[in-house]
């Protein structure tokens, strides 16, 4: 069958666009950026909470992925590969900077109830002042702040699960984590978010 007269990249699946990029088509590279610049930037931005830095890290992500597009293996989803690099870039940056993110639900490696209790953080002792509380009444702001308070590992899991709509298995493959760990992270992230949003929900009742 003869090729289509013009490359309609917009409607092609990711795998086909990647194949065209591997052939050296500039338009295919740009189509991949167009499709994923927002999801990748949003993920990275919510990890580092700094717009300029997030742009730089998202840019690094795309440059790494597109410069090694020939290494892409079609048996995996392109988006999973992209999110994996984006997450690694963001986590590496956070590790280098050692950002003071403290989980209110204990260390991620805490397995027993005692260990979780010993490493947990009581939100009651760190109540925000009244002005901040009023600002947090806006649900979007409150949830963004609550996500910002999560551990980076929890943050990427919860974002991939609920913002990107990925399955647990996909998240495990994307982040190179065991399935059980992903489930634990998401469970703890939900629990932390629930606790952080309790005052807001109380106000709605």
């Amino acid at each position: 069958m003869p090729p289509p007269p013009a490359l309609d990249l917009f409607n092609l699946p990711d795998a086909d666009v990647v194949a065209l990029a591997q052939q050296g088509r500039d338009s295919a590279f740009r189509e991949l950026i167009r499709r994923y610049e927002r999801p990748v930037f949003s993920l990275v931005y919510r990890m580092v909470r700094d717009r300029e830095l997030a742009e730089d890290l998202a840019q690094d992500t795309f440059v790494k992925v597109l410069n090694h597009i020939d290494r892409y293996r079609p048996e995996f989803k392109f988006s999973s590969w992209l999110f994996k690099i984006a997450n690694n870039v963001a986590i590496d940056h956070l590790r280098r900077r050692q950002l003071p993110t403290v989980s209110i639900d204990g260390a991620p490696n805490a397995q027993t109830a005692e260990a979780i209790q010993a490493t947990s953080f009581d939100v009651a002792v760190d109540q925000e002042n009244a002005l901040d509380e009023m600002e947090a009444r806006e649900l979007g702001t409150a949830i963004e702040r609550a996500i910002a308070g999560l551990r980076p590992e929890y943050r990427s899991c919860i974002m991939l699960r609920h913002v990107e709509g990925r399955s647990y298995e996909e998240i495990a493959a994307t982040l190179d984590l065991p399935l059980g760990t992903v489930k634990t992270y998401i469970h703890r992230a939900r629990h932390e978010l629930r606790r952080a949003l309790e005052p807001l929900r109380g106000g709605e009742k």
Partner: protein
Amino acid sequence: MIDRHLLPDEIDLLLDDEVGFGVSPLKAHVRACAECSARIEEARFVTEAVEHLPRFAPSHTFADRVMSQVPVFVPWHVTALDAMRPWIPRSHSARVVVATIAAAAGSVLTLLIAWIATQTDTLTLANGIAGTRLRAVVLDAARDVLSTVLGDQIFTVIQQAGTFGIAAALIGLVVAAAGSVAGFRALAAASSRRRA
């Protein structure tokens, strides 16, 4: 039906809208238990809030900045295919017509070339005529250039020296022109260095 409150893992199963054999009893319990129903509702409030978070957009120059760091090597066959693509008709029937015409034109051209190749006498004659004409044109042009640049008197002297004289004069001209160009470039470079 389950006669205890749901465990955290079981709440997660319901939050993720899991389906399966073990989920029905959990749902039945939630319908009957106000406390578990409230816990599910509270958890769903949070997950829905996260699901409705907006996606942020990077700056409008983002794609250009990325592409400035991604060297794209386009193979010649891709370039050729892309150059041809706008000329390929959209409909299947039009493509068949164009392919038929192209095949017919290709066949006629091939036959023509094959026929010409068999006419060796004609080719030799045509080649000889073309060679003679080309030599005459080149020599006339060289004479014109030299007589214009050096003047008729000097040209007459060079002409008396024969083909060797004309060739030596031409080489001298080329060397002088190249020297001038190099001199101008050196001057321009020195000037820009001074400005910098």
